[in-house]
Every structure is written in C-alpha cells, then in structure tokens.
C-alpha cells in the first residue's frame, strides 16, 4: 500500500470533520450573539492549530490500543473510508455525527473482520467513558454555571455582556483546542501502520491536517449542524453557552490525557442540559433529544458493521 494513501484519506476525513464541526463551533458562538462569524472563525482556527501542535500526539495510540497487534493496511484504509462515508453522508443529512465513535466503530469492525485480536477491556473503557462523558459534562457545566453566576451577580449589565463576550471568546479557543487535539489526533493516529513518525514530522503533519479542518470550518461554518444541536434542542443564554463549553472542555481534556477518543457532540449535549437544568428548564425538544441519543448508539454500530462487511472485500 502506498504510504501516502492513508494520509490523503486522513486529509479528506479531517476536511469532513472540519465541515461537520464547523457549525458546532462557529454556529453556537454566533448563536449566543456574542461573537461575529469572523471573530469566531479566527478564534477557533487558533485553538485548533494550538490543540494539535501541543496535544495532538497524545492520541497517536488511541485506536491502535484497542487491538493486540499493529493495525494492517486494510484496517487503516477501511477505518478511514467508512468514517469518511458515514461522516460525509450524515453531515449532508444535517445529522450531528458522533465523529470519534464512528471512527472507533469502524476501526473495531475492520479489526474484527481481519481477525485481529481485540483488547476488550480497552474497548470497554472507551465505551464506558462515552456513557459517562455526557453526565460528567452535565455536572461540570452545572458547576461552571454556578461559578459564572456568582462572578457576574454584582457586575453591571454592560459588564456582564462584556464578560460573556470575553468568556465565549476564551472558551471558543479552548474548545477548538481540545476538539482538534482529541479528534484530529485520533485521525492522525489512525493514518499509519508502522511505528509513529518523529515528533517534528508528527507535529507538522498534525498542523497540516488542522489547516485542512480550518479551511473546511471557514467554508462551511455558517450554521447547519450547530443548528441541530444548539438551536433546536434548547435555547441557551450566553452564560449557558459559556458554561456548556467549559464543561465540555473539562471532559474532553480529561479524555485526551487518557488517549480516549470522545465526541464533542456527546459532551456538548450533556453540557447544554447541565446549563438548562440550572434554570429548571421545562421545554426540551424530546424527539430531537431521543434522535441525538439514539445516534450515539446507532452510528458506531453502523460503522462497525459497515467496516466488517467492507474489510473482506479488500
């Protein structure tokens, strides 16, 4: 197999990843009314580039760690192709994709079909983290909200708005940072079969991938998927967005340190509910909530079976 092919596919997948998450990052920030599209795009780009440069390599072994032998070329190819197909298709259908879950599902499916021995314990740890992540983000958001509430209660209305704008700006950088570190790091970690490249090469490749994601985000970051998660699920105040982003960042940062691929959608949805519960919210789009939660189960399973079917064909 040409060594450049997985890297090319990783670039394509990163582009689709940037597209899928563009709305989530830029859309939510714009939706909160605190940042313009341009400000949001610039801040997210800085965060992404910083994230992959500083922490992207933490995720190098994230997927490879769930099988007992090094992944073969076909496992890598199938993982990337299935992830691209599913993420692309679902993004076109304006369905929020649990991106990392799709990659893990596809990788596990390809490995299973290749008869590579799965490390069930490691896989179970990842799945357990996915189940805990929304709840942890919810709790972290709830606490963040209370802290923000205390910090702003004696400020003037003008200062509260300024605080929100500065806060959303900061968490935008931080969220893009952890998202890129975790998810682009996972893509990169899946794009080679042998031993990892030198750290300088790795950082350069990661930066190139992040640049691809930035381009996609800038092109497509005018709404779409963010509308699904943010606007249609429930409506949040700027403080709510600030707290939900903070909760998400805490959980994703922890996942990155543990080299566990985690979906920003899962964390952010948990965070949004955490912010909503601080106000005892009564109106929630139940149908959409169920659809989102169901997608967390259905999409990785679909990726698993699709990869398992495609792998023997290669």
């Amino acid at each position, binding site marked *: 197999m040409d060594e450049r092919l997985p890297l090319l596919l990783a670039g394509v997948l990163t582009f689709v990843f940037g597209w899928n998450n563009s709305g989530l990052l830029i859309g939510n920030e*714009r939706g*909160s*009314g*605190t*940042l*313009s599209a341009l*400000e949001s795009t610039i801040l997210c780009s800085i965060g992404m580039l910083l994230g992959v440069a500083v922490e992207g390599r933490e995720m190098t072994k994230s997927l490879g760690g769930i099988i007992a032998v090094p992944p073969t070329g076909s496992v890598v190819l199938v993982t990337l192709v299935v992830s691209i197909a599913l993420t692309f298709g679902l993004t076109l259908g304006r369905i929020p994709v649990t991106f990392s879950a799709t990659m893990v599902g596809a990788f596990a499916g390809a490995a299973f079909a290749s008869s590579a021995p799965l490390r069930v314990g490691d896989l179970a740890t990842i799945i357990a983290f996915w189940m805990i992540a929304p709840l942890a983000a919810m709790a972290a958001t709830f606490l963040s*909200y209370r802290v*923000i*509430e205390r910090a*702003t*209660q*004696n*400020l*003037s*209305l*003008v*200062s*509260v*708005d*300024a*605080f*929100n*704008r*500065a806060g*959303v700006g900061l968490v935008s950088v931080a969220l893009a940072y952890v998202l890129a570190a975790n998810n682009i790091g996972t893509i990169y970690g899946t794009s080679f079969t042998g031993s990892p490249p030198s750290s300088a090469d790795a950082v350069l490749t990661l930066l190139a991938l992040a640049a691809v994601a930035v381009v996609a985000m800038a092109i497509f970051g005018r709404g779409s998927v963010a509308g699904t998660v943010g606007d249609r699920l429930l409506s949040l*105040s*700027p*403080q*709510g967005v600030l707290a939900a982003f903070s909760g998400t960042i805490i959980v994703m940062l922890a996942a990155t340190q543990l080299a566990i691929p985690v979906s920003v959608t899962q964390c952010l949805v948990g965070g949004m509910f955490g912010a909503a519960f*601080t*106000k005892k919210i009564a109106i929630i789009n139940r149908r959409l909530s169920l659809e989102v939660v169901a997608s967390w189960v259905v999409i990785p399973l679909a990726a698993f079976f699709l990869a398992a079917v495609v792998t023997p064909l290669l």
Partner: protein
Amino acid sequence: MVSLPGVAFGRKEGDIIHRLQEDLRMVRETEQEISGLVAAAAQGDVATCRSRRDWIFELEGKAADAKRDLSTQIAEGAFFGGVREDMLGLLDKIWKIADKTKDAARLLTLAEITDSNARSILQSEDMRRFLENLDLAVGALQHLIEAFEVDRKTILQRVHAVDEYEEAADGFKQNVLAALFERSRGIDPVTVILVRDFVFNADDVADYAQYASDIVLVLVAKGYG
C-alpha cells in the same frame, strides 16, 4: 466595564448604552414641550402653540433618526447576546414616547380651544400634576437606563419608580377626564373630543415609559443568565 491594562472589554456595549441615554434625553426633551404647549393652548396663544408643535415634530424626527441608527448598530453588532431583540424592543418603546408626544401635540393644535371651561381644565391643578407625572415617569426611565452601568440591584430598585409615576399620572388623568365630562354640556363637542384624545395620547407617554421599564426587567432576567 471589565478592564485589563491596555484592554477594555465592554467598550462596544458602553457606547451603545451612552447612545441609548442620549436618545432618551432627546425623547424627554420632546415630552417636556407638552406642558408649554398646553399652557399656550389654555391661553389661546395660537402662534406659540404652532411653534411648540413644530418644535415637537422636529425633535420627534431627530429621535426617530437616532432610534433607526442605534437599531442598526445593535442589529449588526455581536454584543448583547441573547437580549438583542429586547434591546431593540426597548429602543422602540423609548421612541414611542416621542411619537405619542407628537400625536398629542398634533391633536391639541388641530383647532383653537376657545371655550373657557375647556381652557380652565387645561390650566387645572390636575392637568399640571398629570403632565408633571408624565415627565417624572420618563425621568425615572432615564435614571433606570443609567443603572445599566451600575448593577442589578440598582436596576431593580429603580424600575419601580417608573410604575409609581405612571400610576400617579393615571390618577390625575382620571380627574381631568372627570372634570371634562362634568363640564361638557357647555363645551363644543369637538373641543371635548380634542381634549379627551389629547389626554389619552399624553397618557400613552407614561404607558410607554412603563413598557420600556418592563423590558428592562426582561433584560435583567435574561442578561444575568
């Protein structure tokens, strides 16, 4: 304002609030012309009535322009997240104060008021107190908007003052209308209608000040999360 050395957060918001205060100052200036207009109408001074009416129209026009500019600035900017529509609503209610002043001025100058009973009503203590409370309600709204740069507690303390002056104006309006209809037999029906409609439109000034203060409550509820 939140500030760090060399960096000032809240500059955009502060600018909007200062423009809002300036807009409201102009609206109050418009509203404050009513008492002079009423005094001139009560004395049958047609020339002064017309010049005051024209001045009110001019001030209202300036207030409308200011409102339009500020609305555009708020609509296009990335600030006041989550409360932008309410800010636009507040601007609209503030401008309505000037608009209703204009309507009241137009009515009072449609025809010369020659009837002595009608003139005495315009000169009555109830009318004076009615107009005074309209002005106090708008003044209280000005004071309330200034609290945007203080804190939530101060806003909530000041919001009730607008309601109190609006209620007081309502009471004096009732007295003026009662006096008008008590003496209406000797007054030309057109004059009765003119004075009655003037009172209703003038009363809307306090009502819109109150509507604006209601929006301020919404801003506080949403703005502080």
